């Protein structure tokens, strides 16, 4: 006996995935376009979001049996608890310190969701096949409980914070643009699967006929999941290991009496791929044979990156000095943290020095 029409469920089930992808993609693209001019990075961000959406759709359509290990209730409950802990962590994060931690948590939650979907044989999500009576009953119970659990949590939280005073109300307002709202969206997608994984007893699923196309579909889905999870991690590691892009140095002399002159010096430094930052040091320096002096471009306000994507940058040093031999020198040192794996950090030094004769010295 089968439960309700699977076709009906399938027609609605992917909508949240698409909506979430659009929201995340639009957010990333908006954030990226407002802070940088990296055309390639924007494109990569869109491609990545599209890959995630495609992966979610493929994974939802490929049924795979949980296997002996994921078939155990204890294992499934541990994964559910990990999801709950990640959501609580997201709620507890300060609104101004989200950044890379949220991206990392989202990747972890995506992985947990894939594991749970497999552990429950995807009974809580849309399926291209009808469910048997036991699976249908599990799925329906999961949705019923999920509805009242999520509505109860959200309603109670909103009521309590609303009446608890202006401070709590301000927290509720902030929560809607920070971690708690992301946790709500995650639960709005995963909660039925989590509940099914929690309540389903230890199971021995009858193995479906393993057709050649099904085996390939499972492999493709596995590769897509692995790619979706690994690409951001590799891009984050790339910030740490990829050598800084060839530093360019250009010099334009302006007409001046012999022994003196002015030049515009531009030094561009790029680091990382996709998760990247670009520093452009643009300065004008004049010299007279005794000493060099800057006209612009060596101030504290110049100690900043010109473009960055999915990294955070903190300045550690910003110094300008004129040496006793007349050389003017400007040093800017910054730490670059990828937004994913934000515990990684790369120290980058951008500097320029012009001596009293207008020669641009090579700095280490």
């Amino acid at each position: 006996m089968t439960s309700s029409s699977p076709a009906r469920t399938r027609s609605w089930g992917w909508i949240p995935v698409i909506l979430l992808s659009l929201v995340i993609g639009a957010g990333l693209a908006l954030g990226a376009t407002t802070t940088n001019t990296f055309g390639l990075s924007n494109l990569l961000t869109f491609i990545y979001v599209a890959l995630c959406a495609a992966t979610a759709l493929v994974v939802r359509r490929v049924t795979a049996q949980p296997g002996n290990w994921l078939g155990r209730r204890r294992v499934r409950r541990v994964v559910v608890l990990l999801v709950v802990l990640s959501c609580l962590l997201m709620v507890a994060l300060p609104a101004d310190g989200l950044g890379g931690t949220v991206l990392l948590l989202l990747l972890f939650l995506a992985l947990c969701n894939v594991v749970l979907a497999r552990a429950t044989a995807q009974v809580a999500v849309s399926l291209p096949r009808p469910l048997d009576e036991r699976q249908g009953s599990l799925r329906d119970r999961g949705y019923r409980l999920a509805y009242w659990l999520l509505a109860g949590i959200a309603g109670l939280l909103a009521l309590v914070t609303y009446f608890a005073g202006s401070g709590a109300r301000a927290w509720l307002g902030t929560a809607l643009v920070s971690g708690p709202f992301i946790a709500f969206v995650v639960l709005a997608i995963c909660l039925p699967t989590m509940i099914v994984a929690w309540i389903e007893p230890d199971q021995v699923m009858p193995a479906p006929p393993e057709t050649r196309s099904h085996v390939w579909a499972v492999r493709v889905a596995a590769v897509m999941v692995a790619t979706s999870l690994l690409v951001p991690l590799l891009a984050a590691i790339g910030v740490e290991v990829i050598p800084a892009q060839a530093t360019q140095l250009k010099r334009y002399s302006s007409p001046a009496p012999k022994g003196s002159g002015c030049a515009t010096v531009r030094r561009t430094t790029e680091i990382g791929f996709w998760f990247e930052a670009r520093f452009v040091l643009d300065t004008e320096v004049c010299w007279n044979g005794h000493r060099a002096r800057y006209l612009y471009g060596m101030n504290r306000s110049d100690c900043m990156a010109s473009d960055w994507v999915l990294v955070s940058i903190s300045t550690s040093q910003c110094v300008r000095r004129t040496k006793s031999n007349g050389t003017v020198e400007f040093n800017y040192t910054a730490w670059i943290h990828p937004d994913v794996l934000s515990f990684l950090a790369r120290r980058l030094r951008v500097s320029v020095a012009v001596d009293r004769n207008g020669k641009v010295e090579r700095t280490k």
Partner: protein
Amino acid sequence: MSWPRLLVVAMVLVWCLLASPVPTSLRGSGAVLVAFLVATGVVLGQNSQWRVWRRTSQLDERERQARDNAYRLAFRAMGIGIFVLVVTASIADALHGQTRGPLAFADGPRYLIAALLLFGLLPTVILTWPEARSPAESPSSTPSGRLSGISAAMRPALAGLLVLGVWGAALWLVPAGTVRAIVVPSPNLSMSGGTCGAVQISRQLGGGLGAALNISTNICWNGRHAWDGDRSLGPAGKYPFPPVEGNPPTCSLGIDSSDFEPISSESCTEEHYPSGELRIVAQARVSSGIDGWLSRTIRASIAITAKGKVLKGD
């Protein structure tokens, strides 16, 4: 179209009005909209025999399947509904000239109540749509539809009246709460020879679910006098004392959350004392119930000494 479906359409329209950024204020009619939604929710609940609330063992297979379908759709629709509410709150905020974005969701009770109604009514509404019955088939018209001596037909009306009653009781019985914020120095105003602070006082009725009366102004002091900093200076740039007749105080009187209780007769007065103390008093009349027969005066005041000490703010 059967009458349950018409009711569903009406509920959706009323909920959209409640959740919509336009009109920016419901001018006291919010409580009536909520009462309507609750009453129609009771009608639909009776029509569906309260299936979404009943145990699985009390339902036959067809009923169980319909209920479970409703829950699956309701779960998805709930997430979309919350997203819509946050967006509409942001739009409403922008229409008010503010830039708080989604933060506005938590500022007034309108969107909170819309969310709670969404949570409570969604499964019943979704269950009703595909299998709306005619009144003749409705089980609520059978003798079993009577409960505790109250006929089924009366229950929706009673539910609606109960909502209005609770709202009125909140207005009458719950003491008005005060939220006060003073920022010194004022980010909006500075004055040579004096110090200025931005003052905000909010008196809220019904534990935040009713109306709120706000005073928002800049107050300055120089050790000898305190004065309303937003007020235009007197002749030759002198401080505005003694207050000139016909030069009213400029404390901007904000009426918030009048979605659920209409406010009338606002006033704002300013008093100067020989000691240099300034006192600003705002008051308004909040009405509830039919034709405003339940009404209450709400008052907010603040007193500041010539040295900038806040003596009273309620």
